[in-house]
């Protein structure tokens, strides 16, 4: 799915966010580069602790001590967000860039009504008065499929179900017509039938608003459903970066490869799960060389010594691995035979 005329909306370059803890420096995000084009959805996928959420928080500049972005650039519509003043940042958050969080119960304020919380951004960014903002809130709630919005707008978060709260949060995110949406595991806490509702809703809204989305998730199924391009993260770095078809059919990083062959899935009958051995390394004690090497069956001495760079294998396909050729040999005929 190649976008028509690709116009860059966001450019993240060499982003480094470290946590200065008592036990040492945790390099949660350690040199991350990616672009988001207008109207596209970029999937950011990885396991817990790989740095995908920290990346999002760094873009929004929402990190607190001991976390600090120590390097890189985040260029949004031509401006480096990392150099902006807090005031300037506040003008962007919730207006041009909006965020949807995983747990709407903890990210909505329990003591204010849904309507009040949606109105807040409308009043600040679009200078609406109370009545206009309330009317617009009702309209937004209707748009995200909340029944009887005139009544719901006066209710508190605890009066809504999990799926409805997530809809309300999406309404809030879309309120000021953002050009970039960042969703951090927005469906992870939801039941599967509700997840389907929310994904369908997000797809429809993205199209309607022509907004870009960074979708952060650990669920490769969700990625396959919504993303145009994907960045796979492992231990604070992007290890593979390409369009959606390549990632799922011709992955070239052993970690991506391993993730795809290890998960149980509905579309293929699997005899045995090809599990990745070992566990995600402790960020205070990352292995030397390639961070994936202790779990990698392609690993050689070189991998244990020297960290590979993220290199272009083909146009639009970047991989961080010394042994791309050997992996290529294995996936030559496509990862999934018989699909």
């Amino acid at each position, binding site marked *: 799915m190649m976008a028509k005329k690709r116009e860059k909306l966001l450019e993240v370059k060499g982003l480094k966010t470290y946590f200065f803890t008592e036990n040492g420096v945790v390099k949660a995000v350690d040199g991350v580069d990616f672009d988001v084009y207008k109207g596209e959805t970029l999937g950011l996928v990885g*396991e*817990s602790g790989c740095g995908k959420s920290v990346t999002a928080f760094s873009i929004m500049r929402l990190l607190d001590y001991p976390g600090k972005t120590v390097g890189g650039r985040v260029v949004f519509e031509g401006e480096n967000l990392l150099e902006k003043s807090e005031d300037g940042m506040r003008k962007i958050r919730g207006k041009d860039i909006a965020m949807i969080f995983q747990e709407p119960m903890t990210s909505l304020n329990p003591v204010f009504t849904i309507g009040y919380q949606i109105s807040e951004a409308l009043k600040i960014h679009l200078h609406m008065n109370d009545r206009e903002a309330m009317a617009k809130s009702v309209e937004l709630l209707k748009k995200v499929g909340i029944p009887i919005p005139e009544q719901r707008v006066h209710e508190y978060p605890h009066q809504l*179900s999990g*799926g*409805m709260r997530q809809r309300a949060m999406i309404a809030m995110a879309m309120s000021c017509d953002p050009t970039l949406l960042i969703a951090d595991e927005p469906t992870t806490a939801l*039941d*599967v*039938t*509700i*997840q*389907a*509702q929310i*994904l*369908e809703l997000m797809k429809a809204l993205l199209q309607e608003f022509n907004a870009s989305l960074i979708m952060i998730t*650990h*669920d*490769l*199924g*969700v*990625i*396959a*459903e919504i993303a145009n391009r994907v960045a796979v993260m492992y231990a604070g770095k992007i290890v593979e970066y390409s369009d*959606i*078809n390549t990632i*799922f*059919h011709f992955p070239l990083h052993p970690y991506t490869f*391993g*993730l*795809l062959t*290890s*998960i*149980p*899935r*509905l*579309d293929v009958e*699997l005899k*045995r*799960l*090809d*599990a*990745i*051995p070992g*566990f*995600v390394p402790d960020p205070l004690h990352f292995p030397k060389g390639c961070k994936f090497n202790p*779990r990698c069956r392609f690993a050689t001495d070189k991998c244990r010594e020297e960290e590979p760079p993220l290199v272009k294998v083909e146009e639009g396909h970047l991989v961080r691995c010394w042994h791309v050729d050997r992996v290529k040999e294995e996936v030559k005929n496509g990862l*999934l035979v018989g*699909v």
Partner: protein
Amino acid sequence: MAKPILQVRHLVKYFPIKKGVFRKTVGWVRAVDDVSFDVYEGETLGLVGESGCGKTTTALTILRLEEPTRGQVIFDGKDITKLKRRDMRKMRKGMQIIFQDPYSSLDPRMKVKDIIAEGMLTHNMLNGRNVYKRVGELLERVGIPADYMNRFPHEFSGGQRQRVGIARALALEPKIIMCDEAVSALDVSIRSQIINLLKDLQNEFKFTYLFIAHDLSVIKYISDRVAVMYVGKIVELADKKVFFDDPLHPYTQALISAVPVPNPDYKKKRIVLQGDVPSPANPPKGCRFHPRCFMAMDICSKVEPELVEVKPGHFVACHFYDKKGGNS
């Protein structure tokens, strides 16, 4: 297939809703409402459903960790709902459970070796001297070095703790193991390791599993037969292949179609259900699924459908397939 090792008959578990100063019971949460099924020796029965559907309460009630309100549980030919506390404790040696959260299900103040040895000592399976040797063997079997037995749970990662939980269940040489969302809290790459381990152990020791999960992909991989629950009831039960290839209940169809598949080329017709799962404290009249059902008929809002065998081994609770309901 073999004989049933576990027969659940009309199992009911209601929880009272209490209000006011005198804690008067004002209503009931019908967590499990007339559930019947068999689990055969050596098989894995997958029990799937969304949060609040009663799948965990079903497992806890079978083990009598929650006392059933009504109904029978026949384990190995004996009705265990009538057993006295002491006899029940003996019976539980044969029925073990692995919990979802490996953080809260292991006592943080006990060493791993004592957590695993506790059951074996309680049931006098081994004496104090031999028990730790056995603990070491069990740890090795689940993939943890035996010399880690002197450590405390917090020294292990989530995946390792789940392995400890498996070793603890394994220690009692049970006939059936209930896995209650045993892999749900784990990261993708760790989850497949644990699923493989559970499968290997089943091959080796011929366990029976009652595998409870909300993730249909995992259920499809691990189960021989699958039952789906909705608001306290089983609505469909069938062999895995039939369940996934030819589901009959509209809820099952919607559930399967809702699962995101990690393949961008995979085309399917998605049935998006409207509305939310109703509360088991106040389930809809008639068929509990009818307010969200895209096939609902008049009768569905009035009469509760029974779970009937529409084809050999394929049970469905839906008026659409019920001869009395008029259709097919």
